[in-house]
C-alpha cells in the first residue's frame, strides 16, 4: 500500500541509481521510515523526508555507476589498445586515410578560423594604454539620420586640455597628401600630422631616434617601411627630407626617428609623422581656432576612465561654440569612443583614421559556418567508417568480451582508439592549417595574418577542438560496437549496417551539406563573371586620367594631348569618378539631404560615356549653366521627383536648377551602393583632373604619351595617373578570389562526402557479400547487382536532395544578400550542378564497389573459414 504513496519519480530514480545488491536493504529501510513518518507526521512530511533521503543517497558507496574504473590503471592494457589501434589503422590504409584526411582537413579549417578571428579581434591590442585612450566623436543630423563622425572641430583638442585637468594627454591627427623628395627619390606620400603626445599615447616604439623629436616642428619620423623605401637599411636619423605641401610651399625636415615595424594586426599606423603645427605651414591662411574646419581625429588619454563622464558632461559648451559658426554641420552631441572597439564600429563611425569595414567580422561568421560544415562531414565519415571497420574486428571484440572485458572496457578501448586517431589528425591538421590553408587564404585575400603558432590561446583552443571532434566522432561508434553480445558475435549472427537508420540519416546530412557548398561555389564563380561584365553606368574602357594640381599646367597638358590624333575627347574636372568625390548638402524645406558631388566641365559626359536619361548635359557656351545641376536617377527616386527637370535646389545658400538626369553610375566599386549624386560645372581654375578618351585600340599609346608630356611639364613630380578601368584597384581580383575560396572549400566538401559515401557503400557491400556471391553463382550480372545496391540509396538520395536542393538555394541566396550589395541574380544552375555531381558520385562509388565483388571468385565470399 505504501508504495503508491511514495514519490514515484524519486523511487524510480533511486531504483535506477542504487547498486542492485544494496537496493533491497536500503529501500526497505527508507520505506519503513516512510510508513512511520506517514503515521506520525502525515503524508506530506513523509514524502518530503523520503525525497531528501534519496538525494542523500547520491554517494559513491551507493551509486552503481561508481565502480572504480580498474582498467585505468592497467598500463599493459593501454599498451595493448595502442598496438591494436595501430594495427587496425595500418591494416585498412584506405579507411584510415579517409578518416585522417577528413579530420585533418576540418581541423586545418578550424585553425584558419582561429587565426582569422585572432587577427580581427586582436586589432590594435598592442597599445599599452588602449583602455585609457578615447576618440572624440560627434553626432550630426544627416538626411534624417544621426551620423556619428570621428573627425572633430580643429580647436577642440586644445580647448579640451585647457578646460579639463583630468585629461592626461591629447593628440590631434590630420593627414595631408604631399610629395616627398629625398635625393633622387620623389614620391607622392601621405604625412600624418599629430601632437607630440601621439607617440606617448600609442605604443609605437622607435628603432632609431627619439620620440621627443616629434615635439619639434622641423622633425619628421618615418615608419620602418618608408625608411627602407628611401634609405635602404641605413640609419637615416639626421638626414633631411623635403616635403612639398603644394604649389610653391615646401619645407625641409630633419629625420628625428624611425619606427619599428608595426605589429599585425593594426588599424592605426603612419608612414610619416610631423608635428601638427605644420598645418599652418601647409596652408598659411589656416586659422587654428576656426570652429568650422575639422581635423581628422582628436584623441584623449585619461588616467581614470571614470573621469570620462565628467568630461562628457562638460562638452555642451563646445556644441554651442560649434553650431554658432557652422550652421551646415549641426552637432547634436559629442561622445567619446574607446579605441579598443573602434575597429569593430568603424562601419558606423565616419572616420578618416579608422575606416576599416566590419566585413571581417561577418567573414568570421561565414568561416565558422564553413568550418562546422566540414567538421560535420568529417565526423560523419568517421562514424560511418568506424562502424564499417568494426565489422572486420568482430572476432576481436568477441574474444575480448569472453575473456572478461565488460561493455565499458570495450567502449573505453574504442574511445582511446578514436582519441589516438584524432590526436594524429590534430597534428596533421595543424601542419595543414599552418602550411597550406592559412597561406592559401592569405594569398587569396592578400594580407598577412601574422599567425603565430606559439600563441598560448591557440594551445587552449586546440584541445577544445580535439575534445569536441573526439566526442562527436567517437561516442556513437564506441557505443554501437561495444553493444554486441559475445554469443551472437561468435555465432556469427551479428549483421552490420544493413538496417542502420542512423548511418542513413548521417549520409543524408552529408549530402545536404555538400549540396549547399557546391551550390555556393558555382554561384560565386557565376558572380565573378557577372560582376566583371556588370555595367559601371559609364564606359571606362579606353579612358585614361591624370591628376595635376596646377590648373594652368593642366590646361597646357590638355592642349598637348588634343594634338594626338588618337584622342577623341578630353575633359577636366575638380572631382573624378572612381578617384575623388565631394560631399554636398542639399537644403530641403524639411531636412538636409546629403549627396555626392562631382564638379566637371561640359565634355565630361561625352568623354566618360555617361548616359543621359532626360534633359540635357551642360553647354560650354551657356554661362548660366553654372547655376544648374545634373542629377543621377537615384536622387530623383529618393526625393520622389516626378518632374525633375526645372526643379530648383538650395545648395550652400545658392539656387541651382536641374537640367538633366543621368542613368545611375558607380563611383565606388560594387561593394558600395550607388548614392544620390549631383554634377555641377567646375569653376575655372579649380580643375585638377584630366580625363582622355582614346580611339579604340590605341589607349596604350595615348597613355604612354601622357606620361611623356608629364615628364616634361612636371620633372620633379611622380606621374599620378592611370587607366580608368583600374580605379577600383583590386576589386575584381577580390571578387574572383571569393570564387576561388569557395571552389576550394566545395572541393574539399565533395571529396569528404564522396569518401563518406565510399565508406558506407563498402560497408553495405561487404555486409552482403554472401548474398551477392549466391546471386552470382545463380547467374546475376554486374548490372543487376548494381541495381540491388543502388535500390537502397535511391530513396535516401531522393529525400536528401529534395530537401537539399531548396535548402541550398535559399542558404546561398541569403548568404549573397548579406555579402554583396550587387550580385548575380539567383538561379538554379548551382543547385542542378550540385545534385548532378552528387548523383554521379553515388553511381561511381557503387560501380567501383560492385565491380570488386563481381571480379572476385564467389567461392571466396561463400566459404566459411
Amino acid at each position: 500500500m505504501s508504495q503508491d504513496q511514495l514519490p514515484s519519480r524519486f523511487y524510480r530514480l533511486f531504483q535506477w541509481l542504487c547498486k542492485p545488491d544494496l537496493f533491497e536493504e536500503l529501500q526497505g529501510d527508507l520505506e519503513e521510515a516512510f510508513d512511520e513518518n506517514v503515521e506520525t507526521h502525515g503524508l506530506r512530511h513523509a514524502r518530503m523526508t523520503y525525497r531528501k533521503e534519496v538525494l542523500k543517497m547520491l554517494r559513491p558507496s551507493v551509486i552503481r555507476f561508481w565502480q572504480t574504473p580498474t582498467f585505468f590503471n592497467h598500463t599493459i592494457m593501454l599498451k595493448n589498445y595502442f598496438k591494436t589501434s595501430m594495427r587496425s589503422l595500418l591494416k585498412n590504409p584506405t579507411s584510415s586515410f579517409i578518416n585522417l584526411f577528413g579530420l585533418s582537413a576540418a581541423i586545418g579549417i578550424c585553425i584558419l578560423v582561429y587565426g582569422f578571428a585572432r587577427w580581427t579581434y586582436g586589432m590594435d591590442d598592442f597599445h599599452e594604454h588602449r583602455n585609457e585612450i578615447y576618440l572624440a566623436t560627434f553626432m550630426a543630423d544627416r538626411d534624417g539620420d544621426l551620423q556619428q563622425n570621428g573627425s572633430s572641430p580643429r580647436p577642440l583638442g586644445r580647448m579640451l586640455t585647457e578646460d579639463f585637468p583630468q585629461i592626461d594627454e591629447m593628440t590631434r591627427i590630420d593627414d595631408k597628401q604631399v610629395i616627398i623628395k629625398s635625393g633622387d627619390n620623389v614620391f607622392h606620400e601621405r604625412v600624418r600630422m599629430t601632437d607630440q603626445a601621439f607617440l606617448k599615447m600609442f605604443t609605437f616604439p622607435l628603432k632609431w631616434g627619439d620620440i621627443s623629436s616629434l615635439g619639434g616642428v622641423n622633425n619628421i619620423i618615418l615608419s620602418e617601411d618608408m625608411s627602407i623605401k628611401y634609405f635602404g637599411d641605413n640609419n637615416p636619423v639626421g638626414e633631411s627630407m623635403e616635403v612639398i605641401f603644394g604649389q610653391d610651399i615646401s619645407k625641409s625636415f630633419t629625420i628625428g626617428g624611425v619606427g619599428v615595424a608595426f605589429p599585425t594586426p593594426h588599424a592605426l599606423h603612419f608612414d610619416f609623422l610631423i608635428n601638427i603645427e605644420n598645418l599652418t605651414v601647409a596652408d598659411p591662411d589656416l586659422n587654428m581656432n576656426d570652429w568650422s574646419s575639422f581635423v581628422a581625429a582628436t584623441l584623449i588619454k585619461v588616467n581614470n576612465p571614470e573621469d570620462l563622464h565628467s568630461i562628457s558632461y562638460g562638452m555642451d559648451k563646445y556644441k554651442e561654440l560649434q553650431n554658432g559658426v557652422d550652421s551646415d554641420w549641426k552637432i547634436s552631441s559629442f561622445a567619446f569612443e574607446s579605441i579598443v572597439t573602434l575597429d569593430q564600429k568603424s562601419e558606423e563611425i565616419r572616420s578618416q583614421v579608422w575606416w576599416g569595414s566590419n566585413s571581417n567580422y561577418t567573414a568570421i561568421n561565414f568561416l565558422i559556418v564553413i568550418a562546422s560544415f566540414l567538421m560535420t562531414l568529417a565526423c560523419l565519415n568517421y562514424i560511418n567508417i568506424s562502424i564499417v571497420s568494426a565489422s572486420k574486428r568482430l572476432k576481436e571484440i568477441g574474444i575480448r568480451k569472453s575473456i572478461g572485458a565488460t561493455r565499458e572496457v570495450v567502449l573505453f578501448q574504442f574511445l582511446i582508439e578514436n582519441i589516438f586517431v584524432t590526436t594524429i589528425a590534430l597534428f596533421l591538421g595543424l601542419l595543414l592549417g599552418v602550411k597550406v590553408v592559412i597561406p592559401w587564404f592569405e594569398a587569396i585575400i592578400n594580407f598577412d595574418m601574422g599567425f603565430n603558432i606559439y600563441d598560448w590561446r591557440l594551445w587552449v583552443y586546440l584541445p577544445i577542438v580535439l575534445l569536441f571532434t573526439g566526442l562527436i566522432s567517437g561516442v556513437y561508434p564506441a557505443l554501437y560496437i561495444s553493444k554486441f553480445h559475445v554469443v551472437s558475435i561468435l555465432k556469427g549472427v551479428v549483421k552490420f549496417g544493413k538496417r542502420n537508420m542512423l548511418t542513413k540519416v548521417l549520409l543524408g546530412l552529408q549530402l545536404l551539406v555538400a549540396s549547399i557548398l557546391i551550390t555556393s561555389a558555382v554561384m560565386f564563380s557565376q558572380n565573378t563573371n557577372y560582376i566583371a561584365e556588370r555595367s559601371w553606368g559609364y564606359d571606362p574602357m579606353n579612358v585614361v586620367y591624370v591628376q595635376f594640381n596646377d590648373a594652368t599646367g593642366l590646361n597646357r597638358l590638355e592642349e598637348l594631348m588634343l594634338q594626338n590624333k588618337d584622342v577623341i575627347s578630353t575633359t577636366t574636372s575638380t572631382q573624378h569618378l572612381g578617384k575623388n568625390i565631394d560631399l554636398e548638402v542639399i537644403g530641403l524645406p524639411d531636412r538636409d539631404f546629403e549627396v555626392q558631388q562631382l564638379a566637371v566641365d561640359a565634355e565630361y559626359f561625352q568623354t566618360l560615356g555617361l548616359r543621359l536619361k532626360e534633359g540635357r548635359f551642360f553647354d560650354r557656351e551657356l554661362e548660366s549653366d553654372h547655376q544648374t545641376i545634373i542629377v543621377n536617377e537615384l536622387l530623383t527616386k529618393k526625393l520622389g521627383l516626378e518632374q525633375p527637370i526645372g526643379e530648383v535646389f538650395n545648395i550652400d545658400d545658392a539656387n541651382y536648377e536641374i537640367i538633366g538626369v543621368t542613368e545611375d553610375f558607380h563611383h565606388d566599386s560594387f561593394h558600395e551602393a550607388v548614392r544620390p549624386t549631383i554634377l555641377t560645372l567646375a569653376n575655372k581654375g579649380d580643375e585638377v583632373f584630366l580625363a582622355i578618351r582614346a580611339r579604340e585600340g590605341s589607349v596604350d599609346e595615348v597613355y604612354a604619351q601622357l606620361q611623356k608630356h608629364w615628364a616634361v611639364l612636371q620633372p620633379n613630380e611622380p606621374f599620378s595617373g592611370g587607366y580608368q578601368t583600374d580605379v577600383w584597384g583590386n576589386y575584381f581580383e577580390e571578387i574572383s578570389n571569393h570564387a576561388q575560396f569557395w571552389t576550394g572549400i566545395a572541393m574539399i566538401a565533395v571529396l569528404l562526402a564522396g569518401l563518406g559515401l565510399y565508406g558506407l557503400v563498402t560497408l553495405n557491400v561487404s555486409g552482403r557479400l554472401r548474398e551477392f556471391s549466391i546471386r552470382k553463382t545463380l547467374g546475376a550480372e554486374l548490372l543487376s547487382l548494381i541495381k540491388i545496391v543502388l535500390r537502397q540509396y535511391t530513396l535516401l538520395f531522393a529525400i536528401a536532395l529534395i530537401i537539399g536542393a531548396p535548402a541550398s538555394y535559399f542558404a546561398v541566396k541569403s548568404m549573397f544578400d548579406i555579402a554583396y550589395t550587387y550580385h548575380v541574380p539567383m538561379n538554379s544552375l548551382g543547385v542542378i550542378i550540385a545534385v548532378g555531381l552528387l548523383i554521379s558520385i553515388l553511381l561511381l562509388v557503387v560501380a567501383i564497389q560492385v565491380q570488386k565483388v563481381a571480379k572476385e571468385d564467389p567461392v571466396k565470399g561463400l566459404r566459411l573459414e
Partner: protein
Amino acid sequence: MKGSNLGEFQEIVLLTILVLDDNAYGLKIQKELSERLKRELSRGALHTALSRLEEKGFIDSYFGGATAERGGRRKRYYSLTQSGKVALKQAKDLREEMWRLVPNFTLSFS
C-alpha cells in the same frame, strides 16, 4: 587496507549496534544514532559508515526473514565480529587510560 583504526563516528556506530543487540538493522541504527547525537543523520551517510566498517572486518551482516511491512523487503541485521569487539575495547581502554592521566578536570559552569 586503509588501516584498522576506528574513527569516532564509527565507534559510536559500533556501540549502537551493540546496544540494539538483536534488532540492529539500518533504520533502527539510524534512529538510535539521530536521537543520541541529537542531529539528523541520513540513511545514505549511515550506509557509507557501515560499508566502511564491513570493509575493515569489524561488522558482519545477514538478512532476516521477509515480513509484510516495508514492501516485503528483508532487513539486513548487523552484528560485531570478534575483531570489531577487540577494536572497540582497545578504543575504550585507550580513553580510560588517558582519562586517568588527566591531572585535574572539573567542568566549569561559570
